[in-house]
């Protein structure tokens, strides 16, 4: 086994265990920590796949910002603010059908992959593949437009987050009363001006 293999093994195990922890943890904080483990594991694999720039980005943006934000919100809501997960609720049938189905689906995909492709080693990566120059050139070269758009997206997301978090709840009763379409189409004089001209004999 080559040293790369070992490294890949470790990262893979960390990532998978982290993912399992994320979804099975009772306490959301532990879930966030599981997420962090997965992200770090995947960052490791990036390095293995000679995608150094991405590994850095992954660690900085994902691990640094996203997981932190999660922890921040979890602490804001109080660590034990989990819903009553236990109780039987109508509609829970969906879960116990969907989950096995998903796993079967992915298993099928994996089997298909295994049967169809003939695995062979990576070829030698061209020099500078995955470095900041390559990816940067690509981002600011061909993918300039998506880049600008993503900046706009980020700004909108920020403003959106603020707007949602701050606004007061609207009471349901204020909703404008909607006149039934049938009543309006076939009902009496729909137009105020129309009522004025003639006696509204039909409007029963």
């Amino acid at each position, binding site marked *: 086994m080559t040293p790369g293999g070992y490294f890949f093994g470790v990262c893979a195990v960390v990532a998978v265990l982290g993912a399992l922890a994320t979804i099975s943890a009772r306490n959301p904080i532990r879930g966030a920590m599981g997420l962090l483990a997965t992200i770090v594991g995947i960052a490791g694999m990036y390095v293995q796949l000679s995608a150094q720039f991405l590994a850095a980005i992954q660690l900085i943006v994902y691990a640094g910002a996203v997981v932190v934000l999660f922890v921040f919100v979890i602490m804001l809501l109080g660590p034990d603010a989990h819903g009553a997960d236990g109780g039987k609720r109508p509609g829970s049938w969906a879960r116990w059908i969907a989950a096995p189905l998903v796993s079967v689906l992915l298993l099928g995909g994996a089997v298909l992959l295994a049967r169809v492709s003939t695995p062979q080693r990576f070829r030698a990566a061209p020099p500078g593949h995955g470095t900041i120059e390559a990816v940067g050139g690509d981002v600011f070269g061909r993918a300039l437009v998506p880049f600008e758009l993503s900046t706009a997206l980020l700004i909108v997301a920020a403003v959106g987050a603020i707007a949602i978090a701050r606004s007061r709840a609207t009471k349901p009763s204020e909703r404008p009363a909607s006149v039934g379409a049938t009543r309006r189409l076939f009902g009496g004089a729909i137009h105020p001006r*129309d009522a004025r001209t003639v006696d509204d004999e039909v409007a029963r």
Partner: protein
Amino acid sequence: MSPAVRAVFELAPYLAALAAGALLPRRSGWAERAALGLTAALALALVRGLWPGAAPAPAPSPALEWPHLLNVIVFLPLVGAAAILFLPRQSPTLLRRFTLGILVLDLVASLFLLRASPERGWHFQFIADWLPSFGIRYHVAIDGISLWLVLLTTFTTPIAAFVSFGSLKTRVKDLCFSFLLLQGGMLGAFVALDLFLFYVFWELMLVPMLLLIGVWGGVERIKAAYKFFLYTMAGSVLMLAAILYLVWSHREVAGYLTFDYLALSRLVLPKTAAWLCFGAFLLAFAIKVPMFPLHTWLPDAHVQAPTGGSILLAAVLLKLGTYGYLRFCMGMFGGPAWGAAATLASVAIFGGILYGALCAWKQDDIKRLVAYSSVAHLGFVMLGLFAGTRAGVEGAILVMINHGIATGALFLLVGVIYDRRHTRMVREFGGLARPMPIYTAVFVLVTMASIGVPGTNGFVGEFMVILGTFTSMTLGSNAQMQGVAAAFGVILAAVYMLSVVQKVFFGPVTNPKNAHLPDLSARETIALAPLVALIFVLGLFPRILTDRMHDSVDAVLERYREGRLAHQELPEHATTARLRDRRGGPLERGYPKSPEEREAEAAKLAAATAPASAPAAQGAPQ
């Protein structure tokens, strides 16, 4: 004789008609007298103009027929409908005058259609590409048959509108809009020769009718409007599926997409496909006719519809079903139509004529009674079409037009007493002959037309249909039996009409409210006069209609026979559709060009005009 004397001699009949019309109404009011006199003179002019024997109709070569006339007739009301939306809602009189103006203009324009020569072929034909990628073209034309149905529409709608303006006072703008849109939709459906265009107009008609019934109707108007809409929609959706299959098969066989009736009617589908498509078309038209099992929407729609809506629904909308069967079912599916003719004729007789009459007899609402009588009359029409003889088909078309006039007049008359008493229950009336003598006279006269007393127009059509059934080969061995059963319908017609006439008009005045009902008003008399005049004119001189119909009916019957032969010739297990040979001649004028032909033509055109620098003129209709 000096020219002056000859002029006087020439004008004498019109002056006499004018005087008779003017003298007729007893009450004063010179406006009514003038109007009635004018109608009488106009009616006489129409009859003399159309008189078959008189001047031999000049056979205008196609060049003389202004190709855009049909576009004017169809799109004038549609454009008018659009224009109505911009007129102010508060001045109903302006709206009414504008609508009536457009409708009368349309009537005058449609009178020019009479210049078409009576021999077979498509007249006033106009073709323009609409969606070339799908082979859909704006292809309109008329022949002997659709000419009269267009005239029936343009003749009846102004009357219906004129009467409705008298009684419906709310939402006048929407009323005008609906009338104009309905007129445009109906005319378009009658003249369309491209199946897609036919389908568009077929659906367009439903919307204004839905409004007419839904907005100004009776108490349960919304339920009746929905029922009417859904019934027709269910049928037409099936028809659309059949159209698409036809177009697809045609493309498979001929290689190019076209929705044109001329091309698709050459298609001979394999056995099961032909029967299924025929079934789909038949269902769509049977709902519209309405034929026996699918007729229950008609009484509800009529009972809830306002007078104007009822007149149009009875006079024109039902005829689309029968016209559709004649043009599309018999035109495109000769084989299945021939095969199903005997059974369908029995359904038309026992389900339509006899069943309709029996139901009509027991109704206590006059409008429901007239609605069931429409089912009976249209049973005759369908019987005429199934009989497949020339007399049968011509009789069917005559019954279509005469039913339009007689039942239109009946609904108008029922509207008269509805406006006075706001009820249609027969038991509410009794002994109306005393307070309203003129109204009684007109009602009895129209009843005689509806029953089919010879001398009125009702008789001519039914007589030809019954004789057509007797000598029909399509109905095979039981033609005589069906002829006898159809003739029996004549008795039931007398039974239900006379029983309602007696309950409403004769006998002592039972209900005090009926004692002092005012007789016919000026508006109602003017609306009724042309219909009553036509009852007698068409009753005694049906040749006005049939002369221009002979050739076109022959053409349809020939195509029907060819379709049958081709269908029977097709080997049993054949799974491929085939195209019949093209016959050429006037009936194929305006046949859709396949793309190669079009390219070849464009190439030739370009070659011809290459030296001249002027841009290639847009070709005459492809």
